[in-house]
């Protein structure tokens, strides 16, 4: 395989593919003109919202939307390539912490953009190193999730014991379990992207949209077909001449990059990050969101990521102690009766009825 092929499998094999975008095709669940009209209306509505929504709504929606890159990455990783990962929150945290350390040391201002870029790169590099062990070790499909789970828990343990003065990088103390506070928000051209104002909202919506479309392109291109083939049968895929390990590593790093982006946006939103972002519950939540919507459909994942956070927030505010119980029940019942996800299951059933 060529060098380009290493960086982005599938591209080198089909250079003409660069010219066509392939926003829809056989490997995306939702297609067709009606669908795109609905998407356009939803995006337009989302972009218009700050002009009439309350500060609270905008701030809260920003917090929900900023998880979209992370869950879309997980959808590609799990729904397409068949690799279940509990590690997305680990890369989220690594990038969040990296951004915090860099932004504090740079002293905020427009340097924060560089900090954000470097932070995402750090997340992807760590993912590449970890992914090398997992995929080049040819760990079985059932053990890989366990390893990502362990990775996340180690990260939490490590970050938790950094309260001492020796854990100070430049002028930024890592802060142990209390985490890091007073982190500057991302600032571009004098505009501050913090959690109480509209700019961050727009930024998050646009980034999520870009990643959503990008993921659809990846899925419908050759690389998406190979990933889907790997999920179905690894051996057969290798016999066809694909180096499965490289594809797996690549998709793992891409997903980690998306998660890293979420991490940076989260820090810019709340000016705060703690090891609990890599804790047991935090690590499993994205899996819950993706599973309930439908892991093999980006649209379903967007709906469930936002919808379930709304539900969880609402339940926490009004359901008191029952919220975790209800989330657990929802997950269990979805997996039992619509293992492909609620949205996918529902639309699939409707389609079957009307076709």
């Amino acid at each position: 395989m060529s060098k380009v092929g290493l960086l982005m499998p599938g591209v080198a094999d089909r250079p003409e593919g660069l010219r066509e975008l392939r926003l829809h095709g056989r490997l995306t669940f939702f297609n067709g003109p009606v669908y795109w009209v609905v998407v356009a209306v939803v995006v337009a509505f989302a972009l218009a919202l700050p002009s009439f929504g309350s500060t609270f709504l905008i701030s809260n929606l920003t917090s929900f939307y900023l998880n979209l890159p992370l869950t879309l990455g997980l959808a590609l990783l799990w729904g397409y390539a068949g690799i279940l990962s509990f590690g997305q929150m680990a890369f989220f945290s690594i990038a969040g912490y990296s951004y915090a350390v860099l932004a504090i040391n740079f002293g905020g201002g427009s340097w924060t953009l560089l900090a954000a870029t470097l932070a995402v790169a750090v997340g992807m590099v760590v993912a590449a190193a970890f992914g090398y062990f997992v995929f080049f070790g040819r760990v079985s499909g059932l053990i890989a999730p366990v390893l990502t789970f362990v990775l996340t828990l180690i990260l939490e343990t490590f970050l938790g014991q950094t309260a001492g003065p020796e854990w100070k990088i430049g002028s930024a103390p890592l802060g142990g379990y209390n985490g890091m506070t007073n982190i500057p928000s991302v600032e571009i051209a004098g505009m501050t992207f913090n959690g109480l104002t509209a700019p961050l909202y727009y930024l998050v919506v646009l980034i999520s949209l870009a990643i959503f479309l990008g993921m659809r392109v990846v899925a419908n291109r050759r690389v998406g077909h190979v990933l889907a083939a790997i999920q179905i049968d690894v051996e057969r895929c290798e016999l066809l001449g694909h180096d499965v390990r490289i594809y797996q590593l690549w998709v793992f790093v891409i997903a980690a990059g998306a998660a890293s982006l979420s991490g940076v946006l989260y820090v810019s939103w709340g000016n705060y990050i703690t090891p609990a972002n890599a804790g047991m519950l935090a690590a499993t939540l994205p899996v819950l969101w993706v599973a309930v919507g439908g892991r093999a459909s980006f649209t379903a994942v967007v709906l469930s990521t936002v919808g379930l956070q709304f539900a969880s927030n609402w339940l926490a505010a009004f359901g008191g102690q029952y919220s975790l119980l209800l989330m657990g029940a929802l997950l269990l019942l979805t997996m039992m009766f619509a293992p492909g996800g609620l949205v996918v299951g529902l639309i699939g059933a409707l389609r079957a009825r009307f076709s």
Partner: protein
Amino acid sequence: MDGIIANIVYQFAVNWAFLALAALGLIVILGMIDIINLAHGEFIMLGAYTTALLVHAGVPFFLTIPLAMVAVGLFGVLTERLIIRRFYDNKLIALVATFGLSLILSQGVFLILGPFLPAVRMPFGGFKYGGYSFSTYYSILPIVALCAMAAMWLLFYKTRLGIEMRATMQNPEMARALGVRTSRIYAITFGVGSALAGLTGAVYAPTTSIVPLFGAEFIAPAFIVVVIGGGMDPLLGTATSAFFLAVVSTPLSYTVSDFAGRIGLLTAALVIMRILPKGFSYYLHRPMRSLRALAGMRM
């Protein structure tokens, strides 16, 4: 000097017992029916709660251990029948579903029984040797772990049920063709694994406070043991990987710090994973079998 050696042996044995008991139920289920039960920690918690409730109702502690095993075992059978059974063709989904189950169990216990139950008093006292004192109860935990493994070995290799279980594990279709009721075997296997989790919960109940997140401390060690043990041969895998991990972490915890011990454990796990990705049991299983064949033993 005697004291120091005794102390290191004691610590090693206690470590090993913890790792082995944390993982045994999980690895039996993984090895036999290829399901990872993310609610494993909550099954352990149910064992501890059963013991605590019975002890507070006046049942002698040692009698509560088999009762906890039976209770959690039956709960496991029920779980398999109602939930796990649906997922044999998509095992990753089982992992997600059991996570949902774990949320329900820990939060349900919290809502029904409150934030904690009063502790169970630890039986026996301690003994002194070479200037150090040791806990008698902790000293018998490795023996408990060994007994549990011996019982599993007898079950797997010396009973008809065990043969049917191993047959189902190796080739379900063939087993079915030969008249084994594999669906029943799956339920029993899941029940046995759950009962082992119940045992772990019961025997560790006196060592800590009884809270809904009781199982959380067992989860990460159990997973590490399972990852490097592998599911090829559950008993061999658990025993050897717990042994290896205890060998690495005990001296580090003792001489440096518990944090060093923990980091050592994880580093060792990563290295082993890269060298022996299928786990200890895969690489040990065959040599053992050829050894037995050489000695003229019947497998």
